[in-house]
Structures are given as structure tokens and as C-alpha cells.
């Protein structure tokens, strides 16, 4: 089975607020908020780390979930976010110009 790579789309705006990501789509200015699991995937979406690795290293240790089921859910989520122009998804690594996501005051207070 081929691996899936995910990268944050460079045209969106994003900020973490109280542990959840606010994302403004660059396509149509629609605002989204991501739950904590989706936020973990968003923050780790550097274009170089395969989605299965993100799920294995970042999701599974945090939640009591079967790796295969978690990966399936993550793939569905990644494709949904890609449809809104929030994530780029590819079967090859994605060269991303995005800097690492920094935490913000909503999280660090």
C-alpha cells in the first residue's frame, strides 16, 4: 500500500487557540476549527513525514486507539482537509515552504 504525505497549504492562515487550531481557508476565506487529533496531524504535516508515521508517533501514544483504525480515520480527515484547500496530500513527499507551527498564548497560559 502506498504511503500518504501531508503538508500544510501555504495559502491558509492558522493559529492555535486553547489547544485547537483555527484555520482560514485561502480558497474561500471559510473558517474552520480543528479538534485536538486533527490539530496534531496539522502541526505534524511537514510534507516529509508520512501520515502513517504521524499517526503512529503522535496519535497512538496519546489516544487509546487501534493503529490501523486511526490511520484510516486520519486518511479520511486528510482528504477532507485537502478538499477545502487546507492540506496538500500526495503519495510522494511534498516540498513545503512552511515554517514549523509555533504554539500560541491560548495554549501556553
Amino acid at each position, binding site marked *: 500500500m502506498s504511503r500518504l504525505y501531508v503538508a500544510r497549504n*501555504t*495559502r*491558509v*492562515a*492558522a*493559529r*492555535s*487557540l*486553547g489547544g485547537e487550531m*483555527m484555520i*482560514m481557508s*485561502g480558497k474561500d*476565506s471559510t*473558517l*474552520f*476549527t480543528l479538534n485536538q487529533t486533527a490539530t496534531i496531524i496539522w502541526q505534524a504535516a511537514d510534507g516529509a513525514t508520512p501520515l502513517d508515521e504521524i499517526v503512529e508517533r503522535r496519535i497512538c501514544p496519546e489516544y487509546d486507539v487501534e493503529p490501523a483504525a486511526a490511520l484510516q480515520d486520519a486518511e479520511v480527515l486528510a482528504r477532507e482537509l485537502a478538499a477545502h484547500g487546507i492540506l496538500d496530500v500526495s503519495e510522494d513527499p511534498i516540498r513545503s515552504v512552511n*515554517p514549523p*507551527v*509555533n*504554539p*500560541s*498564548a*491560548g495554549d501556553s*497560559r
Partner: protein
Amino acid sequence: MSGLMQEVTEKALALGVPMSVQLDVTYRCNERCVHCYLDHDDHGEMTTAEIKHLLDEMAEAGVFILTLSGGEILMRKDFFEILEYARQLSFCVKLKTNAVMIREREAQRILELGVESIQVSIYSHRPEVHDAITLVPGSLNRSLDGIRFLKSQGLKVRIANVLMVQNMQDYEGVRALAEELGVDSTLDPTVTPMMDGNRSTLSLSVDNAALQRVFRDEKLVGNVDEFCSVSPHASDEALQSLPCSAGHTACYVSPYGDLYPCVQFPLTCGNVRQQRFVDIWRHSEQLKDVRSIRMKDLSGCSQCTHVAGCTRCPGLAFMEGNMRGPSTQDCEKSFARTGIPSANLLSKKPAAPNLIQIQFLPTIAAVPA
């Protein structure tokens, strides 16, 4: 505001996060609008490095929506460097400009950098009126070309018009022009006093009759009867409510690093050249004072007929002398909208000639024969 944006803003308020900041990168401008509230000389703007450092601090503090404005933003040679840096930090960036300096190359760069929207000031559809306000011949045509370049890139553009004595006949023309260009438009009937307290610009404000005409234009306000009705008496909850987002989830930073609750509220709360942005936001005594204001505490307003539906701006009230007092400009809008004077207007109402005579009589009687 969308339901989700409202929800996110409430969360930011609860967490004490400054969701939205307007940063004026310069007060210099290539236009000289007659109603402008700014001094256009450069008194020591922040350098590129200082602005980048501020953007780092604002991202860390949780700022999401960043409005870059001026002056004219493109008067700064490093504007695109600042914009690129802001977008690398994932801000949702909105721009305010007169678009005079926007050509195809600038529009393309704005698109590449993922700007959310661009607001362009247009005061009339007629060059002779618009240019007489900006005091720059040819400026309307230059601005409209700028809008067309932005639109041709598929960017979201909004025309902002300010209603004044000079252009009060033209707002319908501006709206038609916006429709023709395929952009949104807004009309603001408020002329702001100058930042230094000079109120001479207020003489450009339209009179009550013109305001009434605007407030009864269903294309602007929707349901006129509903818009012009007096709101029912304020509930206890309404009286406990916050006047606006200034200082609560939003603030303003000048090109010199001064932090105010809002661009229209020139109460200096600190300077980002001397203190960290987040320290001013959290600990400024001035901001704490602004945050303590509730509708119920407002002298002259809490008992007013209009309290529930009032659009009182605390910044305009501050510039009038008391941030806990009424804003007469907003009282005049409530009067034009409903035909009912506010408590503040009633208290200021000059005595009519016959009343002066009545007041005068006892004085005469008191004069010894």
C-alpha cells in the same frame, strides 16, 4: 460575523487572547484626504527588524487576524518583506490601501502571499469629487485600475466609502461602481477626529437629513422599519455587555510602536519598542481600565432610550473627553435613525429663543429699580 467566528472570538475573550490587531506600518501617504485623522510626517517609524520582531511576538500571543494599514502601506519600500514575513507566521492578513500604487506585479505578489482581502478607499464614482477629497488629481482612476488588477488575480476586494459633505450625493454611484467591478462596498457615516484631538475634521460630517436618507435606504440597511425602530428596553444582560472588541480581543499598533485599544481610540497603553506586546496586552493599566467598562456604568447612557441598540464607540467617547461617557456622533446617528433624541442630546439641547426670554425675565426683575 459568522457563527464559528463568533464562537472563536468568545473563546479568545475567555482566554484573554488578542485575536485581531491592526498594525499601521506607516502614516506616510501619497494622498492628502481632507477628512484624514493622521499626521503624515514620519516621526520615527519602526524599522523592518522591529516590525518583524513585533510580528513574532504577536504570533506568540495568539493574534490571528492582522490588518496592515496606514497611511498608505505601499509607501514603505519594505512592505512586501513585512507581508511575506507575516504570512510565514500564518497570520490571516487583510490590507487597507488606496490602491494607487497597485499594478499587475503588486497584485500578483499579494495573491502569491495569500492575503485574505484588500480594502480600498473610494469616495465617489466621479473623479472631480473623489480627487477633490484625496487632493490628488487622477487618483480615482489610479485606484480603480488598482482594484481591477487585484480582481484580475481573483482577490477579494472591498470598497470603503466615508460619507461626508463633499460626497453625500455619490454613495449610490459608488455602490453601483462596486457592483460593476464585482466587489463589495461599505459606507461609513462617521468622520473621525484627528489622533491629536483636533476635531476640525468633524465639520465634514453630514447633517441629520443626509443621515436620515442613508438610514432609510433599504439597499444599505435591509428592512428599514426594523433598522429604524427603537430597541426594546435593555435587559440586565445587555447592560452587563461589553461595548465593543477594542482592548478585549482586538487592539491597534501605530508605526511608532504605540499600542492603543483601537485605531479610533488613541489611549496609549504602552509601546512595543519598550515592552513585549503580550506584557502590554496582559498588564497595561489603561487596557484594564478599558476592559472594566460595562454599558450599565456609562454616565448618561445607561438610562438612555437607545442603550440596547446603541452603536456607541468608546474611542469616540474618549476623544470627546470621557471613555465612560456618551459619543455624541453616535447619539446623532441614533437620532437620525429613530427620530428620538438620546439622553445626551436632550441634555445638550440648546435653549430655544422663547425659552431664553423666559430665563431672562427674572434677571430683569432682579435689577434694582
